[in-house]
């Protein structure tokens, strides 16, 4: 029996409720559209292709991390360390590339090596989180609060408190990864799209994705239903680590440096993107598409503020706070 037939039994009231539920799901999209309208009215340059690509390009880091964060939050967890993790990975990538570049000369191999290191480190850090949380039975909040400090401290230590900078020749070779574009669209934007599509697919069309939702919705029920809860959780933190790795391998060529301020507060931006995008902080259900919209929405706010001078610069953070609360209000009670 196709679903359409099943639906035909539904009362009109139930169908109306269904429709309303769907509309609620578009809360972040509605918020984003309204914000774009405001932006265009305030500054005509807002709606230009260049600015749009700028915003999307700078959203890429947070957006990619937020996709991974979306999985962690749906599974009922949290990761506060992603900003520090990104900074440490960036630092390690730079050190490894500088060293390899000094040894074998600047070439595409060194760049590829650096990118590989980023992915590998992300996965390893995620694995460590996952093991501490599942086998070590420590709350994810505490585990990642701990690594939040550890990761950044190690970067600061490696950088002697200053900045780690990629050698010029390597930086030139690597920079197209951030600044290059395909069909007029910058690589990071393509990457964000690819990660989002892959994320949505994994969440909704694989057994693993279903398990993530099942664990977040009720971990006990999932455990009793023969879901290997520990394995799924570990994979989830590794997936997030991998996303941080991808974000970092795009980030390094942008400035070619990592400093103790790299990735500061990214964790809060990523978590805010996920929640604004309609995922409940308590887990169980959520949307990758919504998460990406949430991430774009957050960077559009600061973009609009930079493009205008109507609000005191001291109030920028307040505007962001207001918008987050309004959008959350628009999509409340979805579950």
């Amino acid at each position: 029996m196709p679903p359409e037939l099943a639906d035909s039994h539904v009362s009109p009231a139930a169908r109306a409720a269904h429709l309303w539920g769907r509309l609620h799901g578009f809360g972040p999209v509605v918020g984003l559209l309204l914000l774009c309208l405001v932006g265009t009215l305030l500054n005509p340059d807002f709606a230009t292709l260049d600015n749009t690509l700028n915003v999307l390009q700078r959203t890429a880091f947070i957006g990619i991390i937020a996709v991974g964060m979306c999985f962690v939050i749906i599974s009922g967890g949290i990761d506060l360390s992603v900003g520090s993790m990104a900074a440490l990975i960036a630092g390690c990538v730079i050190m490894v590339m500088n060293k390899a570049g000094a040894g074998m000369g600047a070439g595409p191999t060194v760049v590829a090596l650096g990118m590989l290191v980023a992915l590998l480190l992300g996965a390893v850090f995620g694995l460590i989180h996952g093991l501490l949380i599942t086998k070590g039975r420590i709350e994810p909040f505490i585990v990642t609060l701990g690594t939040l400090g550890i990761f950044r401290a190690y970067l600061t230590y490696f950088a002697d408190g200053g900045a780690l900078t990629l050698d010029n020749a390597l930086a030139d070779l690597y920079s197209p990864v951030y600044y290059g574009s395909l069909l007029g669209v910058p690589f990071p934007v393509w990457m964000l799209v690819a990660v989002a599509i892959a994320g949505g697919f994994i969440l909704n069309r694989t057994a693993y994705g279903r398990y993530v939702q099942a664990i977040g919705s009720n971990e006990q029920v999932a455990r009793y239903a023969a879901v290997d809860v520990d394995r799924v959780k570990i994979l989830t933190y590794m997936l997030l680590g991998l996303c941080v790795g991808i974000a970092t391998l795009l980030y390094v060529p942008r400035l070619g440096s990592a400093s103790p301020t790299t990735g500061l507060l990214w964790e809060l931006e990523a978590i805010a993107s996920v929640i604004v995008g309609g995922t409940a902080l308590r887990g169980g259900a959520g949307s990758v598409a919504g998460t990406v919209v949430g991430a774009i929405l957050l960077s559009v706010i600061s973009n609009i503020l930079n493009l205008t001078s109507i609000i005191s610069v001291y109030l920028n953070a307040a505007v962001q706070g207001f918008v987050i609360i309004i959008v959350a209000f628009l999509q409340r009670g979805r579950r």
Partner: protein
Amino acid sequence: MSTFNRRRALGVLSLAAMLSMTFMATPASAQKKEVLGVAIPAATHSFTAGIVYWANEAKKELEKANPNLQVIVKTAANASEQANQLQDLVTVNKITSLVVFPFESAALTKPVAQVKAKGIYVTVVDRGLTDTSAQDAYVSGDNTAFGKIPAEYIAKALSGKGNIVALRGIPTTLDNERMDAFNAVLKNHPDIKLLDAKHANWNRDDAFKVTQDFLTRFKQIDAIWAADDDMAVGVLKAIEQAKRKDIKLVFGGAGAKGAIKTLIDGSNPLIQANVSYSPRFMYDAIKLTAEARLKDQKLPATTIIPSVLITKANAKDFYFPNSPF
């Protein structure tokens, strides 16, 4: 504003004069045992890393030159930790003099006052206390010049006419002082238009984003005051990406190692000058205090380490490849 008027009134020593005084390492002081405590913030970003570096440099040199001088360096991650360290320095290490870079002005005024009440000689660095009676001497960088020098340089480079934008740090009194000084100079150049100034938090990434948006918003920009060498990195990348040719000048600030190197090498035509605000004043403050104490002298109540214009000509004097900053 009254603070820097007073500072000026108290007299600005020239860097050279001060250094010559400090380097007169002195055989005359050989009798007295002196324990100097140094309390500074931990190295969480490159500027504070520089502070830590220079404090340790001073310790090394001074202890080598003066066998009866002990220097104890403590770094703190927050204000309350620093307050605890001050107590420890007094009770455990029995210091006879203290050089402190307060984590926060207000929060540390009382703890420092208590140290001074024990008869210990106190030199406060950079961030002034809210009650100046809690200190014997005050050594600081010159935030007014930090804003004034770039403004004057930009005005001159643009021949008194053009559009500029500015980046600001984290909203603090320090940042306000610099911005006020910058604006004060611009008042004399009515044809230079400051289009906008936004906070980028002394952060490369934020500076990149803010500059991107400035470039979208303003079609003609002649110069950018990045106000910090870290922020200048982000500014330059954003300009490069947008392939904008209208900008002739990017003025950073503080004289970080990388920025000075660029200046020396002449590797970026947009970078033509800088203004010094080196964490090296930590070195100077420790050295001045130690030398004075060993000779039972006092420091002037206020010593401003002047911020000076750095150009390609004098850049070598400000290049310390071993410092993290």
